[in-house]
């Protein structure tokens, strides 16, 4: 599949188009054309390196939403074996914006849960653009409890613009569904490793993201609201999304500096979508390592450490005098 380029990648796109053109030229002077292609390819790599060395938070947001970026089910195919998708919340419906099931990573049985976007228009609608409804979060909770009962660690993948804001969502208790997951995940007795693979949009992301280890892909984002949403509220205009993206510090690098992320995983040159194989190997190695480290923790220690981790969230001045 041809790579689709973002607006800030246009110079690279033009070079790549030229390379494609040369490839299709009749082979009258094959040697010199081959040289020219190699030269242009080197130039394209160089250009990509220099553009990607200075990405703005908004450009990273665009990469996190790239239509060709690997999604949860792609990683389920490339990292895990023996995957069996499990459906439904047992109460209302099967929300396709969240997928989950049993699988193995490096032979180790785990429960995997993640938000799922669609690749084409039809699939996007079916997956509701990766925006879960209450039944999605309740399916996730059901699978978490199943994992806990059989002492299986939990791996979650975050990739959502946010929980779906609709009439039905409100009628069926979107707030309660998200809140319940936060409550239950805080005390779940099995290890939880969360990876932000694309967009980490607000409470809809966090609802499957309370964890013992948080990893983020280099060009993924995680914040309380989308840059567009923040801009329209604070700047009164969604056009100020670039300013909002800067201000919110939603990139993996910035969040690691704030001490909110355990590990940032480097992406292939040009982003994860350029090389699904490479990013899968990186992610697999990191997930397997974190799972092995957590696997040896006694349950009490695991829960105490998670509780301390969650309690440490926040930056404030404390002038309380010791009694």
């Amino acid at each position: 599949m041809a790579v689709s380029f973002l607006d800030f990648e246009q110079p690279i796109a033009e070079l790549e188009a030229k390379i494609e053109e040369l490839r299709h030229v009749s082979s009258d002077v094959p040697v010199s054309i081959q040289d020219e292609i190699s030269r242009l390819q080197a130039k394209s790599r160089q250009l990509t390196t220099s553009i990607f060395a200075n990405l703005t938070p908004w450009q990273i947001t665009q990469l996190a939403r790239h239509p060709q970026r690997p999604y949860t089910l792609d990683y389920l195919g490339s990292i895990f074996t023996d995957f069996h998708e499990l459906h439904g919340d047992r109460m209302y419906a099967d929300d396709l914006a969240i997928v989950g099931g049993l699988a193995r990573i490096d032979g180790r049985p785990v429960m995997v849960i993640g938000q799922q976007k669609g690749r084409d228009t039809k699939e996007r609608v079916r997956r509701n653009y990766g925006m879960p409804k209450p039944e999605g979060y309740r399916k996730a909770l059901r699978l978490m409890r199943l994992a806990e009962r059989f002492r299986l660690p939990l791996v979650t993948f975050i990739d959502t613009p946010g929980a779906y804001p609709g009439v039905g969502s409100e009628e069926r208790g979107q707030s309660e569904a998200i809140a319940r997951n936060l409550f239950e995940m805080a005390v779940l007795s099995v290890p939880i490793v969360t990876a932000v693979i694309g967009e980490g949009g607000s409470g809809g992301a966090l609802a499957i993201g309370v964890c013992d280890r948080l990893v983020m892909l280099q060009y993924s984002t995680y914040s309380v609201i989308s840059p567009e949403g923040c801009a329209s509220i604070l700047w009164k205009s969604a056009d100020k999304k670039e300013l909002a993206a800067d201000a919110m510090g939603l990139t993996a690098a910035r969040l690691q500096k704030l001490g909110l992320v355990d590990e940032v995983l480097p992406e292939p040159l040009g982003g994860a979508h350029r090389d699904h194989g490479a990013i899968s190997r990186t992610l697999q190695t990191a997930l397997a390592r974190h799972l092995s480290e957590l696997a040896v923790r006694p349950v009490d220690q695991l829960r105490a450490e998670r509780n301390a981790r969650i309690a440490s969230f926040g930056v404030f001045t404390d002038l309380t005098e010791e009694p």
Partner: protein
Amino acid sequence: MSWFEKIMPSRIKTERRTRSVPEGLWIKCGACDAVLYRAELERNLYVCPKCSHHMRIGARERLVRFLDPGEHVEIGAGVMPEDPLRFRDSKRYRDRLAAAQKSTGEKDALIVLAGPLQGLDIVACAFEFQFLGGSMGSVVGERFSRAVDHCVAHQTPLVCFSATGGARMQEALISLLQMAKTAAALARLAQQRLPFVSVLTDPTTGGVSASLAMLGDLNIAEPRALIGFAGPRVIQQTVRETLPEGFQRSEFLLEHGALDLIVDRRDLRERIGALLRLLLGAPGAAVDAG
């Protein structure tokens, strides 16, 4: 600032500013247009005596009038906001904080008091909506967490009055994580079998609704309060159709099974007192100490 305000001693000015309803001897009800005498409205807990419309009430005033009269211990008052991201939109977050602190007389959007309710020791907290829309950032999360710790240490129940637009954008992901922090605190409380009564008042939306506010052992709402995950305008823009009548109001939530009950503000003291005593297996209150 008028010449009169300029010459007034600052202590008096602060006193004035803690009131959530604008000053004036007479106040017009936003729902029925009745012109009401301020002192009478205050006595009535800012509930319109003509139409029972529940106006907003400041956090501290609410708590003081919810608990029994007397001494209350404030929890987490020493926890003050910072600006970890050096956030700036049209104004700096620092300046917004300073302005909110000045206009409300509070340091941040959650007030926590420990004291008796009809003789039963409890911890009660309330969101100050006038403080940046009652938004939840690090200080709200930490104070709520300390409220729970106090409950665990003293084996008392917790009551929280929400009035909030949700997570505070200026602290970005750190605000979002306060949802996990408050939910985890409530899990600690639940493990101790101590009750949590969540009182949802107008408005309770966003990240607070999707964390602590919907996690009550009892979820109680005041009448006609706006309660939801997404704001009605966002939903309207998403679904592009007219929203049903009464959508996201307390009565709508009760009908859809999200609330235990709707209680008039003037009855909250008595009802919550009675419910807590039932949950804790304590004898009923003979006389209301208030």
